[in-house]
């Protein structure tokens, strides 16, 4: 610690050079933080998956339906604690190009299965008794400025009511917290009673199971029960289901990792190059330090510390700025929910900063360590 002023003085002897090196590291980690948010937005749903939840869909594909009476038969499978179901609404508000993730659900069993979502008790009670009631996530409340008590003409791009209209007037009874934050949940019964077709059919069942260990056997039993029927099922864990969903968007993760690697590799060279230049200019000073009795290791460590200081200052500031930036624009992106830099990115960032600093300083530090005092002093 007591060498910190010396290290600092070394950095400050060429202010412009240090500044530009710190800035390139800053940019690299800012980009890293923002790309972390992009990745999070595309795959974040997977992290919300409950290990004790299974998804049952029609084996043919997601848009094919299953009869709602499957629910009773599924509930009898040993190990199944709760069953709920949902039907895609194809909802939008005014602008059909801005879809809302809306489902028709069975309210009480839905809340039972989704313990990770919290709804104030009075709102929950209001919703349960309001036929045309919906609850929404905070993201929707923010995007459309909706409040509890608002009446909304919700439109569907799939369903028609028996008069041929596609508008459902709904009341906002509650705003939940936790879980997936951009959902609109209406009563399945309200949707099904009023819609003109596909009645008594649902798109998906969600099961809560007592013991995640038994997920495999329960899935087999459910699928076995409906084998060779008109609507065969495919049961998977919620995680596997969401993973395949995220993968359909494309391999964003791979692209992000590719870009970040390219950026960090460039930064490694820039920082390494700067460190090497800086050491080359200070050969005689190093020799003096060694002559004064600094150990070989001491000199090397000082070089490493200098390089680390550059990457940590630039990295921490850059990451913090990037995360703030992602948070600020996140709420303005309608089709990318959960656009924020995840905490796991921060941990990896610290690791990356440290490795970047150490790698960049490695060669110059070795040079400093191997320096022949007499020869270096003679040159000076």
């Amino acid at each position, binding site marked *: 610690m007591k060498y910190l002023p010396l290290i600092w003085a070394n950095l400050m002897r060429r202010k*412009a*050079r240090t500044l*530009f*090196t710190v*800035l*390139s590291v800053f*940019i*690299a980690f*800012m*980009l890293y933080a*923002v*790309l972390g948010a*992009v990745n999070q937005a595309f795959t974040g749903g997977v992290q919300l998956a409950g290990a004790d939840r299974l998804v049952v*869909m*029609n*084996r*043919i*594909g*997601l*848009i*094919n339906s299953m009869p709602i009476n499957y629910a009773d038969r599924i509930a009898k499978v040993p190990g199944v604690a709760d069953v709920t179901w949902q039907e895609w609404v*194809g909802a939008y508000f005014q602008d*059909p*190009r801005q879809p809302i993730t809306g489902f028709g659900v069975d309210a009480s069993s839905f809340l039972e299965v989704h313990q990770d979502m919290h709804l104030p008790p009075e709102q929950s009670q209001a919703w349960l008794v309001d036929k045309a009631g919906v609850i929404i996530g905070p993201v929707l409340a923010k995007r459309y400025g909706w409040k509890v008590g608002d009446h909304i003409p919700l*439109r569907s*791009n*799939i369903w028609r009511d028996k008069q*041929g209209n*596609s508008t459902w007037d709904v009341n906002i009874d509650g705003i939940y917290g936790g879980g997936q934050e951009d959902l609109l949940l209406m009563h399945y019964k309200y949707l099904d009673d009023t819609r003109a*077709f596909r009645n008594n059919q649902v798109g998906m069942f969600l099961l809560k199971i007592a013991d995640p260990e038994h997920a495999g056997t329960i899935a087999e039993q459910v699928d076995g029960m409906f084998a*060779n029927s*008109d*609507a*065969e099922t*495919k049961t998977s864990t919620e995680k*596997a289901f969401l*993973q*395949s969903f995220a*993968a*359909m*968007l*494309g*391999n964003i993760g791979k*692209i992000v990792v*590719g*870009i970040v690697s*390219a*950026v960090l*590799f*460039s*930064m490694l*060279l*820039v920082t*390494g*190059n*700067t460190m*090497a*230049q800086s050491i080359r200019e200070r050969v005689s000073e190093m020799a003096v330090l060694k002559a004064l009795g600094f150990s070989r290791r001491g000199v090397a460590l000082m070089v490493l510390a200098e390089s680390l200081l550059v990457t940590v200052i630039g990295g921490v500031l850059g990451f913090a700025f990037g995360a703030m930036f992602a948070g600020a624009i996140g709420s303005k992106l309608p*089709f990318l929910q959960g656009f924020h830099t995840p905490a796991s990115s921060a941990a990896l960032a610290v690791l990356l900063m440290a490795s970047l600093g150490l790698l960049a300083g490695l060669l110059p530090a070795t040079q400093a360590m191997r320096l022949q005092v007499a020869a270096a002093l003679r040159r000076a």
Partner: protein
Amino acid sequence: MRWLYQLYTVCALNLRNLKGRLDSSVVAVIGFTGVVMVFVAVFAIREGFDDTMRETGSPDVAIVMRGGAGAEVNSVLSVNDAKQVAGAPGITATAGGPLVSDELLVQLSMPKADTGLDANVPFRGVDANAFLVHGKVHIVAGRNFQPGLNEVIVGLRASHEYRGFSLGSTLHSGPYQWAIVGIFDDGGVYSSEVWGDLTIMQAAYRRGSSLESVYAKLTSPDAFQAFKDYLTTNPQLTVSVERETDFYAEQSKNMSSFITGAGTFIAFLMGIGAIFGAINTMYNSVSSRAAEIATLRALGFGRSPVLLSVLVEGMLLGLVGGVIGGALAYVLFNGIETSTLGTNFAQVAFSFRVTPELLTRGTVYALLMGLVGGLLPALRAVRMPIASSLRQL
């Protein structure tokens, strides 16, 4: 003239000495290379996706769906609707009646070849008219399916994207088996689909006689407006009518603007990072040339040739980085097949497309970065006091 001569001399001298500063120059070049490579690669995704959408369909084909559906998967049309559509003016007439294609769209959940995770494949039920309406669709291997049989043809891109989508194998979907008897291609979106017989599929998926969409081949692209007006003003119908090419162009807009936004942001930030790296390199270059510059100035060379020589060096580094970056992007990414979520909640496959225009833009960007990176060091070069620099000799 004299000025040009000076400029030439200073630049030539500078470049001849570049060898001595090779290591730090290489660092700047690698910085530019990285930026241009990422820039070209990201925009190659957009080019590829847009290209696939542009290649889809033709301007003289109209899609009719239920009003407000937005995508075929949300649409339902009855046989009666389809009859009304067939009666509209402007449709190409054939011996078998007006040239319309009634289509059904089902989604199949199938494992992808690369990840093994399930993804949605559009499975389109068509009759013989479809191949006349969708003129670009042609069989590239095997044969067409036979009406009345559980046979399908798969798109060329779909055949690369999914497990077991090869000629001669069988698709298992719920209780049904579909034999793959042919591979087709259209260079566009349909290449990501599976096509089978409409009547068989309506029975298998219990759709009765309902349809998702009707495609009509018009007598000419100009016949569209009259066709559309006729259907949208018909009180018995609530349908939306769109030109096939416009429909798919519209689909690519969201994706395009997302990639453009994200790509510009990434390229801009990386560019700034690379410029900072280049500034260090160029400062280093200027200070190592201090004596040389001072000598030239003492000999009577002006400030501007010296200034320009530094900028030329920066741009040269940019040019080298830009060319290498573009070449790497071309070799590594051009033609790579990938897919994303497209219309109908299903997968659209496309290839990265590194176009000459992209390569040019990448190189120009690199030149610009080199120029900006050389600016501050160039100013320092002309401001260096001649006397003290000479004393260091």
